[in-house]
């Protein structure tokens, strides 16, 4: 294209033009959500979680059986899966499908509530330690270091032996022992955020300590907190199942997945479905939470360099 004279006219460079070619900003959350959506396994995990919760809450309403209806006739006990009993029946003739659904209620609520307890204790402890820093932080972290060396499953077992098995006790026992990981992460986040420039800028502008804590530090720590809380759920589900397997789980007649699996073990040779279905439920739940939690972690990771 020939350079014509009129093209050599000056233009008024304005602010808008100067910034026009810069990329439009997206917020951190929108970006993270986009990345999460692109993660297929994480989305599948989320879908499974939603399905499991729906089944747990509404499933038993649609079943013709209750979890305690027994049928002790020879044609009732230990039946393989059929159209009448989708998951078959157990040694007392109870419909396994509905029992697994009730088990979902118990196992999932243990997972969620224990995770909540972990969240509350961990965030409080880690938050205080990280925020105040200095000597308080030192002492609190020394305590955590010591506690970290204690084999947690053993302590949970010990607690359950002494305080008798039961739904509430399990949630408390798990929550009271597994909060340490969360506390460390929260404290680490707050410490590194405190160092960052914008926090100092806020201080320089005269923001009060409370304002700094609530408007800056906590919202920016939420990412790792959510990830850790999500990943605590499969840990809690596993621990409960483990405890049930060694006889320290929830008390009868309540049956969590762990109890069902443990009962199913007895009939493994002849009636494998009695173990397989509850076992499958446990694995599915843990898989779903793990995939989703992993996806969350990848999506919320601050994306450097690029």
């Amino acid at each position, binding site marked *: *294209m020939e*350079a*014509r*004279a*009129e*093209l*050599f*006219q*000056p*233009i008024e*460079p304005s*602010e808008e*033009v*100067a*910034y*026009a*070619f*810069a*990329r439009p900003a997206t917020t951190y959350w929108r970006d993270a959500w986009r990345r999460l959506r692109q993660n297929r396994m994480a989305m599948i995990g989320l879908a499974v979680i939603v399905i499991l919760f729906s089944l747990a809450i509404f499933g038993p309403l649609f079943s013709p059986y209750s979890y305690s209806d027994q049928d002790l006739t020879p044609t009732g006990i230990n039946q393989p899966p059929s159209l009448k009993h989708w998951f078959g029946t157990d040694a007392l003739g109870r419909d396994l499908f509905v029992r697994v659904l009730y088990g979902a209620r118990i196992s999932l609520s243990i997972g969620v509530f224990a995770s909540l307890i972990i969240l509350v204790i961990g965030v409080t402890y880690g938050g205080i330690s990280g925020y105040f820093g200095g000597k308080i932080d030192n002492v609190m972290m020394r305590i955590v270091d010591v506690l970290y060396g204690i084999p947690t499953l053993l302590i949970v077992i010990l607690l359950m032996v002494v305080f008798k098995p039961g739904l509430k006790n399990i949630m408390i026992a798990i929550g009271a022992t597994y909060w340490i990981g969360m506390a460390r992460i929260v404290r680490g986040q707050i410490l590194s955020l405190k160092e960052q420039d914008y926090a100092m800028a806020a201080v320089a502008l005269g923001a009060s300590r409370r304002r700094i804590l609530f408007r800056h530090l906590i919202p920016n720590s939420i990412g790792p907190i959510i990830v850790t809380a999500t990943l605590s759920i499969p840990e809690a589900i596993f621990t409960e199942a483990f405890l049930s397997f060694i006889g320290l789980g929830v008390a009868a007649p309540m049956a969590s997945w762990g109890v069902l699996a443990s009962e199913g073990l007895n009939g493994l040779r002849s009636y494998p479905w009695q173990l397989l279905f509850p076992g499958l439920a446990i694995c599915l739940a843990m898989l779903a939470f793990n995939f989703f939690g992993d996806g969350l972690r990848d999506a919320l990771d601050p994306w450097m360099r*690029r």
Partner: protein
Amino acid sequence: MMLLSVSDLHTSFFTYAGEVKAVDGVSFSIEEGEAVALVGESGCGKSVTALSIMGLINPPGKILSGSIDFGGRNLLGLSERELQRIRGNEIGMIFQDPMTSLNPVLSIEAQLMEGLRLHQGLRGRAARKRAVELLEMVGIPSPAQRLKQYPHQFSGGMRQRVMIAMALSCQPKLLIADEPTTALDVTIQAQIFELMKDLQSRFGMAIILITHDLGVVAGLARKIYVMYAGRIVESGPVDRVYYKPKHPYTWGLLGSVPRLDDTAKRRLVPIKGQPPDLLAPPSGCAFSPRCRYAMKICLLERPAFSACGDEVGHEVACWLEHPGAASVLPRLADGGVAR
């Protein structure tokens, strides 16, 4: 004698957001024993250019086109194996952050002797002796003891000296220094540059100095290339470009550097705006959105290089140099750096 000649190099990064054109048509050359500087702000593509020369661009980056002629061979056409024989051997490179550029779990000895063993076949006592000589050469006291130590036991300036020793261990013809002193104290900076100057004259080595700090360039380099948004906008002998810069970006760079000897109270004049998003570089001149003197044609078409008047070797890529702009110039002059 021409040592290295880069022609129309294009290197891009294919990210999930799109293609980032980090190097968008860069050409320059360097003679044997010559020191040149590649300057520009962060993100302008100078480091990527250097890494392209070394063939160290990893996915998602890719060198798209162009040629890099080194000693008669096109580096872009060489196999990885052949490049490995050149790296550390004929071309050495030192990097910006000496704290992270040395392997923390290997001793200095191991890291120094690696290159010697690989390219010169030295082993055992002979290699160790040479390593001690190298440490002496870069000014590390008690070299024999320090050889056994680990990077975390050295200070920042000393680590950079070790890096230089490593890069020079096989006496390369070309040293690429990517922001060698950015992470160091000002006083240490001076020492490192003295060292580099000294070594350059001793070994007749060519140096490509990459930096965003205009102050350090003058002491070492003779030619300067100013880069912006993946392109070279001005090039020439250092004193020419510094005293009679032709490109508005260069004016901005020089104008925004505070001067100690400035007695008059002058405001620091930062360049308005931000560097362009390399995902969607502007058509036309990359600097036009921020240029006070932009004309319509600047937004439409990329300017070619043109020589600056009668000055030898001084070139600029700017439409203001074009004869068509001559009539407009009086209207543009508004008290910026005098032309």
